[in-house]
């Protein structure tokens, strides 16, 4: 009887786990099935390289892919040095009190709602960008990536910090014993030792910025054009979903939303695989 109960308990715990796995697959399958009409007959290539012009029967999402890439990479480009600086400050350079203060602020920042970054961005950042560059509306790649950089930095800083703190104390003592300054310790000992963590932080943040909807939707202008400069207005895959969801369910336009979903799913899977790869390399 006891054994029977144990078996049942295991089953009861197993089913939700299985359900969650099925859910992961179901999301993929849904995107695939709904997006299929656009991709049939080898048109997938056309879809991801073509441009968008529903009036002319063109549903390519290449401009959105480019827009997503541009915003995501630019935001990581901004966030990376910022995060390195802050993480170094917190782990090594700052006096204890300030370091603790900064550490708590960074943690707290991970809890700030995305929509608030977007809201303030519209009324504070966009006019500044518009006045500063005198070119365009201010709703552009630059505005979105700056805000996004601020959004992803806390995550990046926390990962960096954790990997800095994991450097064995004996290494640090060795550097101290040789008369190294804090900066030398940072540059020659900590950063080389924390390489794996730094990679993981960058990849993780890249994933977050690829998947973010609101900042791009609210600040990037949503124009359907392949970007030429950072002051151009662009539309990301995520914003495209949010904007086109409202159209006719039968239309090919609507189906393109699922192609976007599929590509975002793919990006995500790629990010996870990369994370795992970096992680496994580190533990070897």
């Amino acid at each position, binding site marked *: 009887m006891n054994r029977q109960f144990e078996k049942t308990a295991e089953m009861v*715990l197993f089913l939700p786990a299985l*359900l969650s796995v099925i859910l*992961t697959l179901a999301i993929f399958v849904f995107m695939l099935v709904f997006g299929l009409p656009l991709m049939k007959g080898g048109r997938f290539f056309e879809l991801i390289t073509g441009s968008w012009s529903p009036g002319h029967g063109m549903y390519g999402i290449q401009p959105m892919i480019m827009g997503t890439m541009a915003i995501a990479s630019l935001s990581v480009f901004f966030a990376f040095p910022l995060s390195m600086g802050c993480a170094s*400050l917190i782990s090594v350079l700052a006096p204890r009190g300030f370091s603790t203060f900064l550490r708590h602020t960074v943690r707290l920042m991970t809890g700030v709602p995305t929509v608030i970054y977007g*809201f303030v961005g519209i009324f504070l950042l966009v006019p500044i960008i518009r006045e500063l560059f005198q070119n365009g509306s201010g709703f552009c790649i630059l505005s979105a990536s700056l805000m996004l950089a601020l959004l992803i930095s806390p995550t990046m800083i926390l990962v960096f910090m954790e990997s800095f703190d994991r450097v064995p104390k004996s290494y640090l003592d060795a550097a101290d014993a040789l008369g190294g300054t804090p900066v030398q310790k940072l540059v020659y000992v900590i950063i080389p030792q924390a390489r794996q963590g730094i990679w993981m932080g960058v990849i993780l943040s890249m994933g977050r910025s690829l*998947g973010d909807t609101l900042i791009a939707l609210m600040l990037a202008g949503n124009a359907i054009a392949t970007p030429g400069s950072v002051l151009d207005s662009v539309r990301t895959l995520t914003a495209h979903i949010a904007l086109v969801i409202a159209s006719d369910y039968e239309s090919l336009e609507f189906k393109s939303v699922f192609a976007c*979903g599929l590509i975002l799913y793919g990006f995500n899977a790629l990010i996870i695989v990369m994370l795992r790869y970096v992680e496994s390399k580190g533990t070897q």
Partner: protein
Amino acid sequence: MNRLWETLIKAFSWACGIILLGAISCIIGYLFMKGAGVIRLDLIFGDTPPLDAILLKRQVLDGLFPAMAGTFFLVCFSVFTALPLGLAAGIYMSEYAGGSIRRVFSFSFDILAGIPSIVIGLFGFSIAVFLHRHFSDRIFPCLLISGLSLAFLVLPYIIRTTQLSLETLPARTRLTALALGATRFQNIRYVLVPQSLSGILSGVVLAVGRCAEDTAVIMLTGAVAMAGVPQSLLSSYEALPFYIYYISSQYTNPHELATGYGASIILLGICTFLFLAAFMIQKGLARRALYYP
């Protein structure tokens, strides 16, 4: 390395710290500067007496109350849906899963955790359309669909926190009850789960924050500009983050814009409160915060 370089690196780090602090204080300062003036009771209740509104005797037509109520019901529904599933799956992963099942499941949870919320929203939306077509025409994007989608969104976090809290228990705690003749399940129920409760709870509080904050999912699955306090799981609803998003582009007069700032401050307050609560519950928060997209 000469002195110049050292000074430069130091200066750079300090500059980064100051930029980060400056940026976040700018954002919050700006919000309060613009919105502090409207933080009054009538921001929430309009001209309806607060007690009547809370007891649902009268509708609030020009306050944030319906949006706050919508967010409250949404959070309750999705967390209570995700909690049993997430707990069970987390326990399974930590205590039972082994070998290839463990690898496959864990990979799949990583994927699920990383899926952009808009894609989850899209999934929820298509489920609603699918159900509407094939089952009942009473189903359309609504509180139920949003709640389920948000539950899908936070499910992997609850699984991960549960799993992590259980796995980090020291071996001696793990073996105590077993050595006394506890079965595997008794050990989980009487020792392991109670011991890791604080870790699990702080994860749950973070999940609540995430449900309250998310906009991308609900904008696809049933949040609307005006709906009043939701009457049932099958009705449309208003929500705080969606209201902020909506006002940001569609305000028609300065007063509406000011309520947008007010709503932002309230949402920020709620999220900060939840975050601090989670922090209090468990200090070793860093790891989970990393998986907070």
